[in-house]
């Protein structure tokens, strides 16, 4: 562990202190009820950010086991919200039991023991087949494809995609051995900063909506301003990554774009289900899914691009002790 991670932490700390001070000043100054509600929501968001940053930072410093457990919990909570809102049926009950209590733990076990080969196909191959197999045993044919697809989607988005974040810790990168925690930090910081900046730009000078039917609060001004600012900040953090400043900026742009579309896609699903937020657990933000929707689609993309351009090849074979245990 080098000192860079503490500098990254310091950057976040500085941003949070500035946000808290601005929030406190604004709370003193606002006069209208509407503005007061906006500032109250902003301050609730900032307070939640302090907690989320503290939890993420602490687990990252504590090491990869804690980080893996943190993301496993996130996957569990996100899928809980996703399935609660997506009305499943009685015939899905046993399938869901397997998905929550067997598939999620097994998948994160693979992350934990760094068995990359099985990690990458466990959900797309084995879970993909198991879900319709178990569902067909219930004997119910009504909504068969819709139900199966909901659960497969839930696993892909909430579990498979999210688990690529802790897997970044196991990605071998040229000249960057043992420093991957910083890369994960860079990724999460970029996506979340992009969300925050899009919100700030959108609230201050947002005029023209990007997709009024899907997400009325997303505007061109907010999106362009937010992504622009984030790309600028993230390229200034190149020293913590295996990238040059230009590469860091390009990566940030890609992550922001994927995050933007991820957020839109999850909004479209929410709207179809007639909900505004996925839950109400995190004050000011909504549910866990509301906080990680933009991470979901960006995480596997970032993981594979890093591996492709900067990686030295990740070993797909099972760990030694598994081979030994299998008698090979």
């Amino acid at each position, binding site marked *: 562990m080098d000192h860079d991670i503490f500098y990254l932490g310091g950057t976040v700390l500085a941003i949070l202190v500035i946000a808290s001070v601005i929030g406190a000043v604004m709370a003193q100054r606002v006069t209208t009820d509407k503005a007061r509600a906006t500032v109250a929501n902003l301050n609730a968001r900032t307070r939640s950010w302090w907690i989320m940053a503290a939890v993420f930072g602490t687990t990252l410093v504590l090491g990869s086991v804690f980080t893996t457990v943190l993301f496993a919990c996130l996957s569990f909570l996100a899928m809980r919200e996703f399935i609660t809102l997506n009305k499943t049926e009685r015939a899905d*009950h046993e399938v*869901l039991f397997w998905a929550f209590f067997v598939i999620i733990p097994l998948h994160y076990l693979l992350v934990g023991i760094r068995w990359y080969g099985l990690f990458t196909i466990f959900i797309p191959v084995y879970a993909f087949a198991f879900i319709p197999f178990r569902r067909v045993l219930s004997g119910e044919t009504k909504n068969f494809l819709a139900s199966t697809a909901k659960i497969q989607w839930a696993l892909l988005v909430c579990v498979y995609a999210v688990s690529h974040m802790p897997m970044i810790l196991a990605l071998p990168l040229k000249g960057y051995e043992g420093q991957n925690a910083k890369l994960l930090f860079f990724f999460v910081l970029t996506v979340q900063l992009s969300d925050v900046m899009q919100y700030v730009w959108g609230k201050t000078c947002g005029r023209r909506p990007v997709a009024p039917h899907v997400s009325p609060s997303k505007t061109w001004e907010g999106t362009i301003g937010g992504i622009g600012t984030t790309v600028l900040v993230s390229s200034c953090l190149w020293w913590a990554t295996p990238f040059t400043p230009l590469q860091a900026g390009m990566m940030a742009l890609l992550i922001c774009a994927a995050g933007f579309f991820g957020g839109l896609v999850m909004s479209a699903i929410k709207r179809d289900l007639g909900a505004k937020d996925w839950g109400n657990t995190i004050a000011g933000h909504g549910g866990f899914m509301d906080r990680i929707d933009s991470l979901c689609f960006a995480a596997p993309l970032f993981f594979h691009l890093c591996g492709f351009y900067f990686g030295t090849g990740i070993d797909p074979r099972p760990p030694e002790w598994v081979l030994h245990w299998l008698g090979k």
Partner: protein
Amino acid sequence: MTRRILAAGLRLLTGVRRLHESPHGDGPAVFFANHSSHLDFAVAWAALPAELRERTSPAAAHDYWSKTKLRQWIATQLFQSVLIERLHITRENNPITPLIDCLDRGRSVLIFPEGTRRGDGEVGEFKAGLYHIARNRPEIPLVPVQLENLNRLMPKGTYAFVPLIAQAHFRAPIRLLEGETKADFLSRARAALLNDEHLTQ
């Protein structure tokens, strides 16, 4: 203490939020909820504020909850339930009597006026029990509790638990009106639980 930990654990498991204050003010009340899962009584109970929870007895079916020593301990010691008769109802064995006794001792009760669990997540017609309690103790507020999603957490016919998010909505208390018939009262109570404004006038 054990009960507080149990309630917190149940809320964590089912995602139910705790009320911050009593939904009806002071004194005993009758909480009545829709019934679709074995978890219903535990979840509605866990959603109450701690002091009120200590003074609330969920009604539990005698035939089920006194079958084994463990079940009996869970029902009577852990949840402080009132066991009521469902099967052999006689004048001496009237299921309403222990509930009234409980209210007279200053404790609140939690009942399921549908009488049994529904399998489809709908709310069935109410049986007469709620009406008889209201007629015998007209001064006691009746608090509707709408339980949502519990048939998806643990539906009838399985013990497999799926950790979705359940909700307990406590509605405004109702009372039996002067001269209201049994049928009118029961359908009004059901509408109040479903929060259906068209039916509650």
